[in-house]
């Protein structure tokens, strides 16, 4: 039985990997829905690091912030999806770059 | 201090109600159906008249002869910053509130918007709440809040219901004022911070700031300058005045009336309340600078008015000149001139408000404000011309009418501390006659041409709107004593602060004897 001691480092590394995946996704994908999902990935990576550090440092504040992030993320999704739906309804198959036409 | 203010606090928070009533009205109007403009008008009218009635009640209940704040009410808002809902009025703000209370219903009833009535009335009501709020605030942050709130409805009124260049005018108005108030906000925060540094607690409360102790002169002077710039834009003093003619010309009639009648007074009122009262030493230190600007404004505004071809622009420039008198009287730092300045604020509101109303009526009839396109109106509409004459004479400052009393007190009082400014400023009285009579001759005298032959006479409804103005013009001119009795104690109190802070300054009106001879 290989007993591996899970230290906070494990979680932080995982969070960094997930964050990187998300970041790269936002940068290289053009489908707005996918971009959204990638943003969610990044947010949750941050949440993960918060929780991990909170446990390690024995400080409840980190977990409190997570709730804030969750709420903000939810709100962001609501607004963002609304925009995306409106966009796709107008122009099926639109990509994020097509929104550039909205600049004044 | 707290105890004292609680002792005099009236059981019913009149001032809070005065601010909230129009705000509630705005919400109600906004909730009404869009298709029934006459209902929105009625509701709007109801709320402004209610506010007006409340302000008159306030006037009746106000105890004359007392210098301090009355009807105070104070609640916590952001305790850690020392900002609160602190409202109260003294003899100076009293008349500003009453003026707003009277002008709003009249402006509202006089003009009907041509489209989107609901939004129009809602914005007017928000404007009224903002204006009254500014006049009753005794807390710097609260004042700032209302001062900024005022801009938004005005912006939309000019932009939404104005004339052809309305967007340009509205933006100019907004940017100008906001630029000034940005400075003011910084100064307010700095005031609280410096006060904290000196006395160990944060407060934005005007009463605490003025009674608690003074700030170091060097920083107080800088702060005063920041405030002064904000108010100078609002007044407006030359060279910050160019937004005014544009805003006035492009604003709908009611907007012009309110703008000239009440909103410009925010600047002059602010100079007294947050200039002299808050920074007495700095006000005294910089008084010459402000008086020079004021005198320049008097002459310059009048000269520019003479050369205008648009009636509304002419009246707007005349406001620049009149407001110059007010600033002169304020910074001459005598009770007499200060009383005159406050009186002049009211009088200017009444007469210029009426002038704008009548110019609006001319526009409604002829769809032009160009002086050159109007002629001979006195022949076709003698009653209209008569009413215009009365208002014009009041604006020129003919004794027996309201315009004279304020102007005279300003000049007479200022003469004792600023003789040569007054000698020059009095020339403005000649110029006032020049531009108004010139415009009158072009518009009303002569033989009417084809386009002006069918100019309709003053309607009964219009006459009824103008009647209160006429009554105020005559009554304030002949019997201003009740007003002066209420203004004077507060003015004296504010000037006493200057005397206390500036060792070699004496308010000539507080000295018993005359100064005697030889200077």
């Amino acid at each position, binding site marked *: 039985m290989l007993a591996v001691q899970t230290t906070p480092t494990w979680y932080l590394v995982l969070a960094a990997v997930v964050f990187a995946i998300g970041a790269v996704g936002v940068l290289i994908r053009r489908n707005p829905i996918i971009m959204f999902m990638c943003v969610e990935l990044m947010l949750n990576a941050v949440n993960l690091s918060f929780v991990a550090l909170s446990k390690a440092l024995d400080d409840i504040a980190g977990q409190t912030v997570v709730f804030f992030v969750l709420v903000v993320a939810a709100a962001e999704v609501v607004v963002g999806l609304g925009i995306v739906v409106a966009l796709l309804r107008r122009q099926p198959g639109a990509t*994020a770059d097509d*929104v550039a036409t909205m600049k004044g | 201090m707290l105890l004292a203010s609680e002792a005099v606090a009236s059981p019913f928070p009149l001032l809070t109600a005065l601010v909230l009533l129009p705000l509630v009205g705005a919400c109600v109007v906004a909730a009404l159906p869009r298709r029934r403009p006459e209902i929105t008008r009625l509701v709007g009218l109801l709320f402004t008249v209610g506010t007006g009635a409340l302000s008159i009640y306030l006037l009746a209940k106000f105890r004359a002869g007392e210098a301090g704040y009355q009807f105070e009410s104070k609640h916590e808002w952001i305790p850690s910053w020392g900002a609160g809902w602190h409202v109260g009025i003294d003899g100076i703000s009293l008349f500003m509130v009453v003026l707003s209370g009277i002008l709003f219903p009249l402006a509202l009833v006089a003009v009907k918007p041509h489209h989107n009535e609901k939004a129009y009335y809602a914005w007017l009501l928000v404007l009224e709440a903002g204006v009254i709020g500014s006049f009753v605030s005794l807390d710097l942050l609260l004042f700032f809040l209302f001062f900024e709130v005022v801009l938004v409805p005005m912006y939309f009124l000019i932009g939404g219901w104005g004339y052809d260049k309305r967007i340009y005018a509205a933006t100019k108005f907004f940017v100008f004022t906001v630029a000034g108030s940005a400075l003011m906000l910084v100064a307010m925060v700095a005031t609280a911070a410096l006060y904290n540094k000196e006395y160990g607690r944060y407060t934005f409360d005007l009463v605490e700031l003025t009674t608690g102790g003074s700030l170091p002169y060097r920083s107080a002077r800088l702060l005063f300058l920041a405030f002064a710039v904000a108010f100078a834009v609002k007044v407006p003093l030359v060279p910050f005045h160019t937004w005014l003619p544009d805003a006035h010309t492009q604003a709908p009639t009611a907007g012009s009336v309110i703008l000239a009648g009440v909103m410009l007074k925010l600047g002059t009122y602010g100079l007294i309340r947050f200039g002299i009262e808050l920074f007495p030493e700095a006000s005294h230190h910089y008084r010459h600078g402000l008086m020079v600007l004021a005198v320049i404004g008097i002459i310059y505004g009048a000269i*520019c008015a003479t050369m205008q071809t648009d009636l509304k622009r002419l009246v707007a420039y005349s406001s620049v000149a009149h407001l110059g008198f007010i600033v002169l009287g304020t910074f001459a730092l005598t009770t007499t001139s200060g009383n005159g300045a406050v009186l002049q604020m009211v009088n200017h509101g009444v007469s210029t408000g009426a002038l704008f109303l009548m110019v609006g009526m001319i526009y409604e009839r002829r769809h032009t404000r160009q002086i050159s396109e109007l002629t001979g109106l006195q022949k076709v509409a003698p009653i209209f011309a008569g009413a215009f004459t009365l208002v014009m004479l009041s604006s020129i400052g003919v004794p027996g009418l309201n315009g004279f009393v304020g102007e005279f007190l300003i000049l007479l009082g200022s003469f004792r501390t600023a003789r040569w400014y007054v*000698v020059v400023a009095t020339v403005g009285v000649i110029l006032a006659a020049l531009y108004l009579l010139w415009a009158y001759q072009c518009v009303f005298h*002569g033989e009417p041409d084809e386009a002006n032959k069918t100019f309709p006479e003053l309607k009964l409804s219009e006459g009824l709107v103008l009647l209160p103005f006429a009554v105020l013009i005559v009554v304030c001119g002949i019997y201003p004593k009740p007003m002066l009795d209420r203004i004077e104690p507060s003015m004296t109190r504010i000037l006493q602060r200057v005397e206390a802070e500036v060792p070699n300054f004496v308010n000539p009106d507080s000295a018993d004897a*005359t*100064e005697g001879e030889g200077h």
Partner: protein
Amino acid sequence: MLQMVWLIPALPLLGFVLLLLVGPRLGEPNSGRLATLMAASSFGVTVAMFFALLNREPEEREYVKTLFTWIPAGNLTVDFGFLADPLSITMALFVTGIGTLIHLYAIGYMHGDPKFSKFFLYLNLFVFSMLMLVLGSNMLVTFLGWEGVGTCSYFLISFWHTRDSAATAGKKAFVTNRVGDWGFMVAMFFTFQALGNLDYLHLKENAHSLSNTTAAAIALFLFIGAAGKSAQLPLYIWLPDAMEGPTPVSALIHAATMVTAGVFLMTRAASVLHVVPEIGTVIAIVGALTALFAATVAVAQNDIKKVLAYSTISQLGYMFLAVGSGAYVAAIFHMVTHAFFKALMFLGSGSVIHGMHNEQDMRRMGMLRKLMPVTAITFIIGWLAIAGVPPFSGFWSKDEILLGAWGKSPVLWAVGLVTALLTAYYMTRQVIMVFFGDARWESHAEEHGAHGDFKPHESPWIMLAPLVVLAGLAAVGGGLNLPFTHGTKLLEQWLEPVVGEFEHHSSVTAGGKFGLAIAATVASLIGIAVAYSIYEKKRRPAIEPEILARGWRYDEVISSFMGGPGRKLFEVTALADAKVVDGLVNKIGNDTQDIGNIIRKIQTGYVRQYAAGIGIGAVLLLVWFVSRGVL
């Protein structure tokens, strides 16, 4: 009894209010009757006040009635009060008296005018204002009346406002008067600063405590005000133009009452002038110059009213000559007699204009005495009075002024004498051109429309009655102040409490006085004789140089200055406001926009570019922190 003094101005005010409310409904002639009744009852009250005052001891003839406090501010308190003393009641007497007569006259003169009731509304308002002016107990109440009469004068000059010249003349009068008002206001500021009070009685008692500079400033600025209202050099330009108004207005406002307000004001300020006699000299010089100047202009005018207008300016100059010489009684005396005969002549000229169907050019008149006998006879009495022929009223008052001027300086006296000669000359010229000589109107008859048989006619009795009354007064008015013994100097005794202590009493002997009177009479007779030989006998060509007809071009120069460089200055200022001040504002706005247009190119709108920017920025920050060793 004296506490009813407020009724004197209140009655015309009541008339004004009534006419304002129901004037058009009353129509013609009832609105005129109402106005006349108000003026007449005001006169009645004034007479009662006069006797009430007469019943008091001379030194107690001062009564102040305060109605209410008008303006209390700081340590200024101005009461809305009236001062009844010999001076103010004298003024009020002739203002209401002559005012009533002119109201009566105007009922006839304004017959058929569509704005009949409005005319009387203004007229009553004017009488009210004028009474406020003379009865005010302090300078500010006087100023109320002062501006009030100016405003009414504006209304009445531009009464026929569809005529451009009338509208312009009204405006000119108001603005020029305002220049004078500026002086009055500054004088009040000086007075208040020095004495802390604007009351006349206070001023009179404390004037001696004024320093020389303050007193000089007060007197000088007051005189600027007086020069504006009383049409003295250099502010006289509005009065000739004011003849655009209806003739009763010219008679009432621009001859008898309003224009004398300046003389009244300076008499009120006699106590101040007493402190600084130098300013008195200035006033006397300005007065003498104005008198001479206006008289020279009058000799070449052809408009019947213009002659009288310049004559009025000249006579007002006389009054200021008297004031400046310290001969206050003479000034008031001449003011009263002048009011009689000049009102008479204006009304007479109105009657002529009326009879000639609105013709004002004297070159088209002549021989009217046949057709308008009453007008002619009364006008001739007025002429004798103004020319200074004994025993008519003008002789006595003019003589008093010349006596006072002699006491000041023989040079001033000489100027006065020359003016007297010119006055007699141009008035004779006028009388001959209008009432004698050839009937020149016949040859111009066709110009008066298709009437064919154009014939001047005498005016109705309602216009003639005031003429007759005024002619009587002009003839015997000198009886007010006959110089023979102290007992016959009624006016001097009456005014003693007001100006007595400031009056400059001449030291000329009785013989000297007689000599001066002879000189004045001879001057008048020479003037009359010369004019007679030129205009009636046609022995010499007329002396009417162009430069005099155009008033020494003074008005033209002022007008072209105002219309030229003055206007340019205004235009440049307005242009600078639009281009420089506002231009700067707009430039800041535009520049901000331009900068924004450049910077906003960075904002491509591609979300992934932004994200990349954020990422790169984050990495760079990280690198920076690490390299600084923070992390």
